[in-house]
């Protein structure tokens, strides 16, 4: 068993091998791996004795269950009307400048992925984004650059994996 397969097995044991536990198991994988590989989805199908197409069908329905490769930090910028009117485009521009990627892309270091998303329920504090599960609101370009800077410094402390990122202090 590979590491991923073991993880899926552990999650299946934790939540139970019933079809209705498919979602918590998938969420558990995404929490650890940031996205669902084919290998992981096939293992889920095996554990729950359902078809792989069904696992993929469910995963592809939910925006937060990614089936494409994602970085360690997934940045989701709200694209809905309140955030749009409050300047989400400038936020995206700022992120793109710092990370040198476009919406939908992942940095070479596999540290960040930049995505758009629908309303996050933070309209009153627009523009809003999520980095993994953490919301950041009332953003300005300067603010988001500082936030990203913190993420990068934190990671640098732990490991040197961010070669392709230059940011302005």
């Amino acid at each position, binding site marked *: 068993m590979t590491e991923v397969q073991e993880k899926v097995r552990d999650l299946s044991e934790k939540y139970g091998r019933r079809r209705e536990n498919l979602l918590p198991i998938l969420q558990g994988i995404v929490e650890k791996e940031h996205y669902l590989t084919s290998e992981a989805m*096939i293992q889920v199908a095996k554990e729950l004795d359902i078809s792989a*197409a069904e696992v*993929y069908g469910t995963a592809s329905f939910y925006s937060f269950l990614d089936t494409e490769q994602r970085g360690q930090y997934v940045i989701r910028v709200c694209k809905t009307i309140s955030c749009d009117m409050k300047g989400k485009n400038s936020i995206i521009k700022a992120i793109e400048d710092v990370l040198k990627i476009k919406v939908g892309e992942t940095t070479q270091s596999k540290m960040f992925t930049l995505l758009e998303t629908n309303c996050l329920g933070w309209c009153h504090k627009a523009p809003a984004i999520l980095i993994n599960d953490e919301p950041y609101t009332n953003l300005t370009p300067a603010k988001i650059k500082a936030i990203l800077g913190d993420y990068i410094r934190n990671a640098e402390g732990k490991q040197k994996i961010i070669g392709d990122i230059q940011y302005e202090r």
Partner: protein
Amino acid sequence: MANINLIIDDFKVTVEEGTSILQAAEKVNVKIPTLCYHEDLCVAGNCRVCVVEVEGMRTLPASCAIPAEEGMVVKTNTPKVRRARKDIVSLLVSEHNTQCTTCYRSTNCELQNLSAEYNIDNETYMSVLKPDIVIDRSSWAIEKDDSKCIRCQRCVRTCAELQHVNAIDVVHKGKDMIISTFVDAPMNDVVCVNCGQCINHCPTGALTERRYFDDVWDAIGDDEKHVIINTAPSVRVGLGEMLGFPVGTRVTGKMVTALRKIGFDSVLDTDFTADLTIIEEGTELLTRLKKALVDKKKVALPMMTSCSPGWVKFIEHMYPDHLDHLSTCKSPQQMFGSLAKTYYAEKKGIDPKNIVCVAGMPCAAKKYEANRPEMRDSGFQDIDAGLTTREIGHMIKQAGINFLDLEESDFDSLMGESTGAGVIFGATGGVMEAALRTAYEIVTGREVPFENLRIMPVRGDEGIKEATIKIEGCLPEWSFLEGVELKVAVAHGLINARTIMDQVVKGESPYHFIEIMACPGGCIGGGGQPIPTNAEIRKKRTEAIYAEDEGKVLRKSHENPEIKQIYKEFLKEPLGHKSHELLHTKYRKRFRY
């Protein structure tokens, strides 16, 4: 169960509790249009085209999904209802690749019918058809064109509820929602068993069989080629539906004439190799039983039939560790192909490289089977092309043949002679019945003890049927079977095959011999049969099959004179050297996910 009284369009109706408004309306001949509804499948209620007005309800409910209630007053044809339906159909058309002039399902398409009925050209929405949709032609059998899909999910429910394969599912969401496979892989790369049931249940041209009739026309037009066709039993009881005859009409003689007019050099009968299958498979079963009972050797029992290529691929994917239960016999189609290019070629003095062997089948999986690399034992691809009943219907129309008034004629020879036992292969239970008619007689020297050879316990549309036959008064060489209670089972629809296989896996299967057909009803309900197919139509085709059997002089495979001849002149003995070379095959383990 309580009865419910309601009024539909001024008709009083009484129905059982739980009956939908749609079904209640059917009882009084009020037709409500549907798209996502199919009586073989669970209710999905997603297309909304079946909306009706119910007094006291603010919105228009979907009649397929709402149960009739006491005192309901339903109106199925008010301006409000018509407007809603027209809007729904218009919206579907707006995202549809409306190409009826070139579409294979034209004149047999539920969306086309509805949009004609509601005269949508009066009122169209701007097209929002997605650009760049690529047709998936990766599979030998199934063609998938998402640009003609209305997302009714009948295919998904078919693949799940009838077949328990779940090769396709609803993926992505909202405007991006499509019917697709695991990680959107091509159909050829997933666990699809090519049964074609999804095609048969699809209301539009989104799912169709890969068509090969143009290749066949080319071969017919080539003077060098000797083109032969063998037609399966179910084709002759289904084909008429496409050509103006009522459901359940037997058109055997007209079909043969039409195929000859089309230009086939010889029109032959798959039933001949069905009879041959019985001899080979029956002998194989008796051999396995002898090994188990006399030699006390370990052999795989129950033995299972292998004539349904959808079932064969199913077990290869789903139960790869239990392939030894499958009979090693090729399907009648493939036996036919390998003999056509050896025995037939020899007898007729034709170079096998010039023989083009076509199969006319009620089946989509047969197309894939013909292309299995295992199926080249004659030194050539044994079957060059598999056509569905629908394709044959099209060819007859293309040839401008007036089928209704056609004279009847008989199959050609060699390999055109068959018995009633070969015919009943088309219905669920038929292979079992045919095998028992022969095996019982081999072992005891007497006919099976059923009135007029009708082995009723294995007939009918129940998903899994069982029978026990006590063997008594054996001939000396079979004395080891004296008193044995032969237990058999018959399953059709792969969801039932799964139940049977799960027993086998647990080592709890009580049977000696099991017949499995991938399609509900057996081949008469095959994925290549005329559309629509439903319970009533399956019943009528089945009745036609049994009538065809009783109309035959010979009704036991071992009595077929051409079978006797081929053993005498070519094969020598069942399970002999030549048989092994040409008539038996191996299976392969496939991925489960």
